[in-house]
Every structure is written in structure tokens, then in C-alpha cells.
């Protein structure tokens, strides 16, 4: 038990300085479409061999809310989640989690998480995949925000009388 925990810490420590970047890339992969990831993997040059370590498997995550919005947590309801862990022939281990039951998408996301950790391929993953998908998601969010903004009520006061 102690050995396993030490091992896990040893693995996690060197990641800490790049963790925010990896965390963000993983969030982008989780929201990517299955096709975006499949196409990118299909077009990837010199694809390393991929061996599955865990999954892909679909299960449940209990989503929590907070009483009143900001109070004590409560269990709100479950969501389907698929997760996968893969190892590349180059040595990196990639993890992925995403809502839904799309196993191919999550396996590809785990591969790209592994490729992101390899310093030689990180910039390509960022440039070819993370950047464009982030741009698409941001554009969709902006469009939705702007559509909602058009339904904002602009109150005005009717002035009656002379003063």
C-alpha cells in the first residue's frame, strides 16, 4: 500500500509544473466530438502502439449540487461517464474521462493525453487539436451567450406629466 502510494506520488510530482496545461487539455478533450479526436488520431504521423491499461469502460458519477447554490453538498443525480487509461509504446500513460458512453472518443482522448505529456509531441497536440477545438467551443459559447443576450429585458420608464 505504502509502496503504491509512493509510486503514485513519484509519478505525479514532475507533472505539477505542467499540470494546469494538461488539466485544460483534458477538459477540451472531454468536450470534443468523437469525430474530432478520431480524425486527428487517423491523421497522426508515426502513430505509436497503444496498449489499454484500463477500459474504456462506462460507469456512473454521482453529480453533487449545493443546498441553496452555495451551502452543504447534496447528491443531485447521476451521469454516465466513460473513462480509459492507455500506455503508448513511447512510455507515456494517458488518462481520459468524459460524460456519455462514447468509448472510442474516450480512448482517443486518453491517447492524446499521453501524447500531450510527451514533450516532443505536446506542441503538435496543442496546435493541431487543443487550440482548434478550444476555438470551436469558445465560438459556440459566445454565440449562445449572444443569443441569450438578445433576450435581455431593457426596462424603461414611461414619463407622464410635465415635470
Amino acid at each position, binding site marked *: 500500500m505504502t509502496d503504491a502510494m509512493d509510486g*503514485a*506520488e513519484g509519478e*505525479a510530482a514532475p*507533472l*505539477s509544473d505542467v*499540470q494546469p496545461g494538461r*488539466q485544460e487539455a*483534458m*477538459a477540451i478533450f*472531454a*468536450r470534443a466530438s468523437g469525430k474530432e479526436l478520431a480524425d486527428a488520431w487517423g491523421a497522426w504521423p508515426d502513430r505509436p502502439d497503444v496498449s489499454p491499461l484500463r477500459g474504456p*469502460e*462506462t*460507469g*456512473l*458519477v*454521482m*453529480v*453533487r*449540487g*449545493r*443546498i*441553496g*447554490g*452555495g*451551502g*452543504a*453538498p*447534496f*447528491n*443531485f*443525480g*447521476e*451521469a*454516465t*461517464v466513460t*473513462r480509459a487509461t492507455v500506455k503508448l509504446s513511447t512510455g507515456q500513460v494517458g*488518462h481520459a*474521462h*468524459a*460524460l*456519455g*458512453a462514447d468509448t472510442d472518443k474516450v480512448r482517443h482522448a486518453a491517447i492524446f493525453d499521453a501524447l500531450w505529456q510527451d514533450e516532443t509531441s505536446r506542441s503538435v497536440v496543442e496546435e493541431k487539436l487543443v487550440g482548434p477545438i478550444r476555438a470551436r467551443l469558445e465560438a459556440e*459559447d*459566445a*454565440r*449562445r*451567450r*449572444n*443569443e*441569450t*443576450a*438578445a*433576450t*435581455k*429585458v431593457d*426596462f424603461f420608464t414611461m414619463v407622464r406629466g410635465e415635470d
Partner: protein
Amino acid sequence: MYVAVKGGEAAISNAHKLLADRRRGDRSVPAMHIEQIIEQLGLAVDRIMSEGSLYDRELAALAFKQARGDMIEAIFLLRAYRTTLPRFGYSNPIDTGAMLIERRISATYKDLPGGQLLGPTFDYTHRLLDPELMGSDAVEEPQTREGNDARTPRVSEILAHEGLIEDDGDLPDDHQTGDLTREPMEFPMTRDVRLQALSRADEGFLLALGYSTQRGFARSHPFAGEIRIGEVDIEIDVPELGFAVSLGRIRVTECQMINQFKGSAKSPPQFTRGYGLVFGQSERKAMAMSLVDRTLRATELGEDLTAPAQDEEFVISHSDNVQATGFVEHLKLPHYVDFQAELDLVRRMRAEYEQTHDGETPDDDGLEAAQ
């Protein structure tokens, strides 16, 4: 006495074939795609996810199609499916203040920060049937206006400064968040478990109870402080990574009901609150949930218990439509033996009755008149 216990097999198999045929309907009409249900009957999908207590639009749409549009049957299918899946863990609590807002209104503050955003609402429509939808409906693109991506504080955060409204509900620090999918229900409940039950409760049941409180059965003087609908991020902590990962977003509806409260032995006069949080876009249910959440706090707030909507065991035990339909609908299953036993019992009781009332046979004319 002989009771048939076998012989239904061929009938059941043929009934299921017939069900499949009737579900499909006229083959010259194109079959519905799951994507069409998700895109065009999205609020039905949302209701199935909410009462099925499982967020997955594809599976909910599939359940809707398989159930021929029977909501409770679809909800049942989704609940049954979830029992086949392993539980990976619990998410970090969602932050509805960071929601990508699609609708947000307040009935208490006209000029609240972030404004009143009507979004895709049925409100203010004239409820006139639109014959154009009988055919293929070409729809204009929506209008747009420059929005902003600033965090939109909940109305409760804005009001909290005055001290006249109670805080978000807290539970003791050592309280373990209850989970009614894991532990049997016990009464009285803590508010966290009650909210979990209410969030998956039948919309019609909550609506009727909420309505009863407005009509005077445990009146709670409510105002819709805020209703917001939109997408929130779901994160889980992954121990092997040592940081939280985002799983994507889900759409939720949140309602903050604000209730005038004259005070009691336990609490000073103030505004109290009821809370509603529901999967998908469903403000009717979120509003009803927040009304019922508030009335179920009667004991906590020292109010007199006078009405059904305040009775926690009554409300929560009967709020789950899968449980309710199971028990109501089981009555149609064969009860031949039970009934034979009861028939025998009633025959004997009748014979005894007639012996003791010898000569006083009921007046035939009177009976007919009563019928």
C-alpha cells in the same frame, strides 16, 4: 379448486411482438432518429433524465422511443439501466454561479446584476396552435446581441448582504452527504437527502403539492427570487492524477424561492428559502421543488404542522414515480390465489351474517334504488 399457473408464454411472446409493431406504427412513416428526439423533443428528454436521475441525453431519447412516449416507462428503463453500471465516484459540487446562462429571471429584483434574460421560454406566447408546424417548419436564426462572459452571481448572494435573508443551507461539518441510491430511506431526513429525493421526484406530484401550499395548505408566501437555466461544468477528483478533471457540461435548472417568514420560537422574522435543482430545462419542476423543499422545513423552522406538503414521510415516500407505478401497476398481475382465498372468506362471512339476520333479507327495491 384448480388455479392455472402456466400457459402465458406464447401469449406474452406474441404480445411483445405486437408491442414492437405498434411502437413502430405505420411503416410508410419514417422512423424517428435518436438525434431528432434529442434536438426536437428536448424537454421530454430532460424530464426523463431528471426523474430517471441519470444524465445521458442519448439514453433518455432511446428510452423515450422504446417506451412509445410513455414518460414513466422511459424513466423506468433509464433507472433499470443505471443499475447495470459501476459507480466511479462523486463529482465536486457544481457551481451554478459559473453557469453558461441560457435563461435567468428574477421576480423580486428588476435590475439585478446580469439582468433579466428571457431565453427560450414559452412565457408570453399566446398558446395558439401553430398550423405551420404541421408541415416542415423553416425557422429563422435567432437574434444576437453582444453578451458578456462575466460570472453571474446568484440573487441569494446579492441579497445576503442585508442579513434579512437566511444563508445557503449548511449542515454540520461532520455530516456525511447522504445518498439514497446507497442507503435505505430513514425519517426524519436531513435536507441533503430530501433534496436528492425531490430532484428525482415526479414532476406532477411536486407540482400538485407546490400548488397546494399556494392555495393555503401550509402557506409559505413565496417569491421566485431567481430561476436560471444553463450549463455547468462537472469535475471529479482523480486520485491517480492528483488533480480534478473536467468531464464536460450538463444543463440544469435552478430555482431560488424566497419566502416571507414571520419568525417563530426558533428563528427571527426574515426571508427563508426553498431550493430547486433539476437536470435539464425544467423550471416548472424546479419551482415546485423549491416550494416543497421550503414547506418540508416546517419542523426545522418551528412552524405548525397542518398540511400534507409539510409531512416529510408522506411527501418523500410517494414522490418517486417508478416506485409508485410499480406498486399501483402490480395490481394487474395475477392474484388468482389471493382472490380465491378472499372469495372463500367473504362467502363464509356472508353465510354467518345471513344466519344472524335470519328473516331480515335486504329490501330488494331499496338496493336497486341505491344502485
